[in-house]
């Protein structure tokens, strides 16, 4: 088993949008060098029928402010479980997790729920929108729960839906939208409280090629503005939008590669496109 490898994190900590105005909770500002997310020795085993499934088998991981990290690997490799551990949706059997320098090991479920409202936004493969709420309400709800006034929530929602090309769809119900549109609503919902960290679990997994491109483009755009993103995907096109790609096999990190940040037209590419006689 090869465990690779250090990464040269070239990005400096980028500015991000301000946290929601009423941040009364204890934020321990980690400072420039503190990773936004750090995991050590994460282990998670699922016990169901049959043999226990070792989904995550000792993962160390560090994600810096402003980084865009993709985790790829075959289905069943445990990558979704890993993401769930990072977002507190599941708790590890052992190992520790720090969020912006703060150890989360003692967090209660309620505390995690608060973090997922404030510091962590999540999008899922099947969007998980509330089907009997309008698009506008789906996006505003987490903002209201986080303590924004209805007016602020509405302003944030308008801004995001506009940005995501969903202006005019406010009153639609999720079921009336295409998959790509629903995922954009889910993205708006995940970002409405300006979380430091965006987690995405196969966000293009139920979209067609066009929808995948759309999601890729949007994630890249938010990343360029400084959004930290950890993405689990099976789609290499989506993964290649990240600056760093982790290959996950059998519950472990098999490779951790920083992608080229040099502009296009490098070597290789013309060969891929060239039409030869």
């Amino acid at each position, binding site marked *: 088993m090869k465990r690779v490898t250090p990464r040269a994190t070239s990005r400096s900590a980028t500015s991000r949008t301000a946290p929601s105005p009423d941040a009364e909770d204890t934020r321990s500002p980690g400072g420039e060098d503190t990773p936004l997310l750090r995991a050590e020795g994460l282990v998670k085993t699922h016990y169901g029928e049959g043999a226990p499934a070792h989904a995550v088998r000792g993962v160390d991981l560090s994600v810096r402010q402003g980084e865009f990290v993709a985790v790829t690997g075959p289905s069943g490799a445990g990558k979704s479980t890993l993401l769930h551990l990072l977002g507190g949706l599941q708790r590890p059997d052992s190992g520790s997790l720090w969020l912006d320098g703060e150890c989360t090991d003692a967090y209660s479920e309620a505390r995690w729920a608060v973090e997922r409202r404030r510091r962590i936004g999540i999008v899922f493969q099947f969007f998980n929108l509330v089907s009997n709420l309008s698009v506008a309400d789906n996006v505003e709800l987490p903002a209201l729960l986080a303590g924004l006034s209805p007016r602020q929530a509405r302003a944030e929602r308008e801004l995001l839906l506009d940005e995501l090309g969903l202006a005019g769809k406010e009153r639609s119900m999720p079921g009336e939208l295409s998959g790509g549109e629903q995922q954009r609503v889910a993205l708006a919902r995940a970002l409405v409280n300006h979380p430091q960290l965006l987690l995405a679990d196969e966000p293009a997994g139920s979209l067609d090629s066009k929808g995948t491109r759309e999601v890729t483009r949007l994630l890249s755009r938010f990343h360029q503005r400084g959004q930290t993103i950890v993405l689990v995907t099976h789609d290499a096109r989506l993964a290649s939008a990240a600056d760093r790609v982790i*290959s996950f096999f059998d519950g472990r990190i098999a490779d951790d*590669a920083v992608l*080229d940040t040099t502009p296009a037209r490098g070597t*290789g590419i013309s060969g891929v496109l060239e039409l030869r006689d």
Partner: protein
Amino acid sequence: MRLPLLALLARGPAHGYELKQDLEQLLGSAYPQPNVGQIYVTLGRLEKSGLIEGEEVEQSSRPNKKIYHLTDAGREALRAWYEETADEPRVRDEFFMKLALAPRTGLADQIALINKQRREYLNTMRNLSKLAAAESRDNRISQLLIEGAMLHLQADLDWLERCQEELEELE
């Protein structure tokens, strides 16, 4: 390059530089700019084999230019081109042979080879995404060319993943 040039001439006569511009316009900035020298060389060969004919046109202040048109034989060659289907893409045989032979040489580790190759593909994929973003969305031909390259790479990456799954089990 031969048959695309013939195809461009099917519409009507043109000179070398016009053909280069036609190609660029059709394929967009994503496609490596055709070398004008290469185009002239190819046109020369096509003329020699009787598929096109050139006609010198005098220009007042510049050297003469040669305008080419398709011959009947050229049109026939083009028709034959459209009759046949293209070859299937092939597995990257060079990488495959490296991978298959690695254990016998004792010089390389299979999983390390796969990881290295994956990084290469991912970087190329990233560059293709950037090209697609930079290219006008309205140039469908160009966008489709890039998307085709990306889907091929996606398949190669999926295959690398399969190799890794199978070979890791053996370790």
